[in-house]
């Protein structure tokens, strides 16, 4: 791992865990500090804080550490690292379309914003996460769990149903969104008013056809056509992302 010195606390903590995962239980605290290029005292403090939270455990006989079962809780933080080709594909898409492109993941019925376009940021990250009916990103998630239908992930379905109810979306509205997304193969949304936007979200699906992520394109102005003319490029990128992540042919679109 290249030196994460100067990175954020969480990045540094993850870097320590990564070194332990690579080096195994013989890697001492000193050696971890060396590998990461950080002062020893900072490394000790970080390691002690990771061990007191039981992300790391001290090996009773060897010099080093082992990963505590608690790191499994970190899985959602690690997940973006598994899709390393993503930033390139998204950056390429931004250049090709000349519009704002975002990339989000879905896990457990929630939205995780992975790559937000710096030139035209999302109107509100909080709204994107909570008011699912008001964004293309959220509508894709709502459509994934149509009300009262069997699902492979009932817990995520419950989370989505709760979020929808909390933001005042009726069961009928959820059905309408689901049928619209099923018909189109993507989700769209326009935001009228002073900061008018038009937005489309194209799903990225796992081989089991589960919604795992979305490629999102957003344009200034309330005309959906302006966003929708980039659909072929988005669908192609979605297919490539699915292919890169799962080494299977794209189901997207």
């Amino acid at each position: 791992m290249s030196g994460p010195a100067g990175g954020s606390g969480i990045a540094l903590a993850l870097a320590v865990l990564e070194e332990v995962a690579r080096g195994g239980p013989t890697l001492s605290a000193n050696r971890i500090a060396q590998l990461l290029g950080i002062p020893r005292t900072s490394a000790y403090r970080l390691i002690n804080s990771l061990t007191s939270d039981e992300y790391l455990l001290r090996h009773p006989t060897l010099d080093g550490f082992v990963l505590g079962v608690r790191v499994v809780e970190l899985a959602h933080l690690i997940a973006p690292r598994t899709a390393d080709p993503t930033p390139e594909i998204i950056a390429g898409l931004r250049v090709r379309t000349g519009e704002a492109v975002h990339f989000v993941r879905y896990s457990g019925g929630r939205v995780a914003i992975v790559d937000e376009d710096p030139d035209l940021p999302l109107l509100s990250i909080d709204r994107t996460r909570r008011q699912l009916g008001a964004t293309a990103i959220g509508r894709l998630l709502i459509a994934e769990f149509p009300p009262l239908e069997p699902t492979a992930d009932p817990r995520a379905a419950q989370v989505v149903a709760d979020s929808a109810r909390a933001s005042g979306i009726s069961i009928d509205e959820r059905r309408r969104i689901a049928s619209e997304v099923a018909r189109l193969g993507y989700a769209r949304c326009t935001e009228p008013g002073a900061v008018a936007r038009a937005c489309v979200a194209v799903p990225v699906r796992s081989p089991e056809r589960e919604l795992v992520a979305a490629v999102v394109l957003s344009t200034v102005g309330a005309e959906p056509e302006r966003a929708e003319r980039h659909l072929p490029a988005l669908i192609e990128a979605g297919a490539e992302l699915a292919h890169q992540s799962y080494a299977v042919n794209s189901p997207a679109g």
Partner: protein
Amino acid sequence: MSALSDAIARRTPDASLGSVSPLHGLRRGSVTTLDLVAQSVAAVAPAGGLLILTGGLVDRTGSFAFVTLLLTAAAVILVALAMSVFARRISAAGGIYTFVTRGLGPAAGMVAGVALLLGYAGVSIDTLRSAVRRLDAAFGGTERWASEGPASTLLVIGIGAAVTAVIALGARMSTRVMLVVEAVVVAALISVSLAVFAASGWNLAGVVPDAGTAPSLSAFAEGIGFALVCFVGFESGAALGPESRRPLAAVPRALVWTVGSVAAVYLFGVLAQLSAVAGGREASLLTEADLAANPWLDPVIHAVVAASWIACTLACTNALVRLVFTMAREGVLPRALGRTSARFATPHVAALAVGTALVIGTLLLVGAGRESLYRDVVHLAESMAFILAYLAVCAAATPYLLRIREFSLREAWPALLGTLALAGVAATEMLAEAADDATALCILIALIAGATIAHLLRVRSGRGLAGRIGAYDTPVASDAISSGAPARRS
């Protein structure tokens, strides 16, 4: 894929770890930080400490009482920080005994271990005896039960049995009850202090020592030793580490919180006392006049203090049981004492043995009377044994950090400073005690030395004991996920 996400995706238990911890059988994660604080606070018995301190410290060091207490509190905080060096890394039911064994090896470990055994036993016995005396004063009426009479004996046996049962059944409520008892007593004493303070017109002049009446250096050191004893027991929360949630975070926090809050209570109490002295009142929180004016006050105070002493007996016996249990698991004491109850997940055999010893020891103390050698030894154990154990744990922290190659001055300085401070206190106390009552001191030293030499001989005899001592709650295979280190893809 990173090695970390690989490991998470596989989620296989780590086979490089054993399948059971040396302390298996205790229920992990069943104790909260609050319970640890309760255990430590009850063992300190700040209510009793405050009553003893306020009068005794002013008597010994005069206007330097506040400074003496401040220095003592600082020294105890250094001990707590030195203990945290270990407690952040290992979770041990043996507390200081295990820490010192890990840092300085079996000989020093056993010195600390025997010191703690004697210390906890001494405090348990003495506080049980005091509790019975206080109950006598509260409910015995004017004639009082005869000290060797059946009432006292029955009370000792009854309280001893109850303490044993609470520990053997693992009643978690007990620590909470102890905390409530201590909180009520301390709140009562603080309000009395406030009243005293107010009566003297918030006179803070007592804080500043009067250089003209400086006590001699030996009186000063004796004062520190005396004040230190009032903090004894704060370390006992560590004994519940293996049973607590996230012990490596919870135990250091509980230790520092306990010392900090107890110190605050004491400092305030002594401040009130000094202001009363400055105001020309008697050097006691409650004067005879107060008691005469409120006849109901006397039995209430006795009953409340008795409750505080019983909580202290329970807490110290609890720590003693964990220590005996650890030694038994290592093979230092008979193995049978290391058994745990499958139903209650407690060291019930050790609890029964320690409970029996407590009752016998207390009855001996009741029978021995005021001027016996046995009583002197018990009293000395309550102070000297702990000073030795604290000195040992401070001295052990730096070698331990060096041994695991994690030494940094930033973490080690409290232990280094604590070693110096405690060595000074231990030396002065030893000299004072040798001049005062050499016999009890010799007996105490002989007990510790004898046990240590026997222990060293057994460890050296090579029957596997060397590999088992210093046992703590190690992570087991199912606590960890395997990293499968060689896989290096990227």
